[in-house]
């Protein structure tokens, strides 16, 4: 009796009791196993329980790299080389002949993602490429197509995407499970690039996440788009005093807001801001002046909103932070949430 001739329910059960590495090995045993495993419904495959996942297009080396980390600190790294036309994994190099390396990388990725039922702690899509001469021009489109075919949202707590346009971010973001996503971090290789965010801010993933980090100049983001986050870091070209006061009022007066820290970076110093909420508590840090204001939060005696403006030579950091009342320095004035001031010490 050859095992591949066993009845289907038996083979299903054997697969069920194998770990995902064993099932991937079984695919290589013979064509019958390969066909059987590839035709299996995803629900019958064992959970790969991978913790992290990353795909990176390395345009300097002409490589696409796919990495995974397993629960037992096992690390899997696949390198697809355009120059060598090869795939390297675990010390073994396979010649890909005339195959497109992006196609092979995405096919391998799909094969592994089929096993993943657990939530990734962290997923990273570094698909940033040089805008004028993209090395792998179809990578984003092919990733989107693969996710569409997989027909299952990727569950991850932290999602990092490095892209050069809203389209690039949108090729990944909608395929991530909005229920599990907690922290969204968007990067661009060039930190001065300006990217419109209106479509991104409309997604369920953006609306459900707890934290957002934008390491480039974000355009078309409104206060309403960010109020639900507990942590924000966004680079902006400009932010008006009116918007900042509106944010201050929203944070202090909203009782159910799960606020922790909002930080904005604008490219130049704004003189007006040093008097934004009247006389500021001034401190010096590394030769620069910090302007701080303290506000009482509605429905909380312990919590204080710290609003801080820190101009440097090239940029201004604006920060709203949730602090304890004991952290307010001596001599600082705490304003109540309606705008009246209370002397704390």
């Amino acid at each position, binding site marked *: *009796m*050859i*095992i*591949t001739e*066993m*009845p289907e*329910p*038996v083979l299903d*059960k*054997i*697969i*069920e*009791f*194998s*770990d995902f590495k*064993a099932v991937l*090995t*079984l695919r*290589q*045993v*013979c*064509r019958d196993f390969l066909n059987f495993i590839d035709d299996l419904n995803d629900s019958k495959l064992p959970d790969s329980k991978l913790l992290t996942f990353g795909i990176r297009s390395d345009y300097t080396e002409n490589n696409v790299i796919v990495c995974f980390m397993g629960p037992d600190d096992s690390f899997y790294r696949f390198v697809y080389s355009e120059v060598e036309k090869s795939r390297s994994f675990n010390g073994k190099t396979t010649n890909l002949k005339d195959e497109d390396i992006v196609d092979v990388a995405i096919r391998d990725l799909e094969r592994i993602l089929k096993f993943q039922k657990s939530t990734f702690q962290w997923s990273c899509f570094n698909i940033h490429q040089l805008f004028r001469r993209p090395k792998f021009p179809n990578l984003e489109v092919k990733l989107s197509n693969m996710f569409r075919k997989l027909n299952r949202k990727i569950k991850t707590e932290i999602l990092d995407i490095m892209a050069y346009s809203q389209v690039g971010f949108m090729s990944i973001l909608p395929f991530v499970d909005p229920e599990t996503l907690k922290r969204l971090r968007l990067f661009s290789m060039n930190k001065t690039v300006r990217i419109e965010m209106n479509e991104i801010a409309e997604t369920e993933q953006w609306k459900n996440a707890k934290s957002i980090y934008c390491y480039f100049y974000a355009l078309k983001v409104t206060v309403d788009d960010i109020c639900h986050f507990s942590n924000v870091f966004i680079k902006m070209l400009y932010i008006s005093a009116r918007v900042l006061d509106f944010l201050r009022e929203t944070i202090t007066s909203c009782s159910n807001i799960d606020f922790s820290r909002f930080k904005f970076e604008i490219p130049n110093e704004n003189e007006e801001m040093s008097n934004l909420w009247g006389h500021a508590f001034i401190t010096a840090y590394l030769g620069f002046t910090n302007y701080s204001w303290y506000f009482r939060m509605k429905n909380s005696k312990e919590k204080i909103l710290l609003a801080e403006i820190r101009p440097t030579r090239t940029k201004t950091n604006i920060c709203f932070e949730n602090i304890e009342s004991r952290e307010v320095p001596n001599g600082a004035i705490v304003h109540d949430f309606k705008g009246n001031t209370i002397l704390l010490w």
Partner: protein
Amino acid sequence: MSSTEQGTSSAAPAEPTTAPESAAAPEVPESFYYVHGKDKVVHKVSAGALQHSALIHGMISNLGYTEEQAKANPFPFENIDGDILQMVVDWCNQHKGKPTPPEDTNLPKQKEKLFDLVLAVNYLEIKELLTYCCKQVAMMVKGKSPEEIREIWMIPTDAEDEAAEKEAKKRAGKEAAGETAAAAGDAK
């Protein structure tokens, strides 16, 4: 040992079982059924033990045999080797009315025997035992390379498989040609 236990365990297959009169609480006497495999050796098994097999349990429910009818008509499992059926019967007896443990370490280690047991258990629809067997089959190759798996499970490579298939086709072709020639000869 209680009189009830003595009554069931010492009963010879040919003797009708009777409820012991001395039992404190009257219990429904356990009914027995009979099965045999390829070797025709008949095994007497209690209905309680046979409950593990969804197939046999279904047969019993549908047939509504009396004790005599059951004895006269053992369930035939011609596709199961005698020693494998014995293993299955022993397992059912050992786990009669008990919750099944998370693991079973008494399964055959030899690949052929284990595979035959898997087939028999799958046929007889014994869910728990099938789970143990499949787990053991999966464990045989855990952490092994494709080459080692081929060796352990005796799977031919695709090339060997194709060659064997070609050879079989060739042989079948020759046999068919021989038969056609013989048939033509007969017709003449």
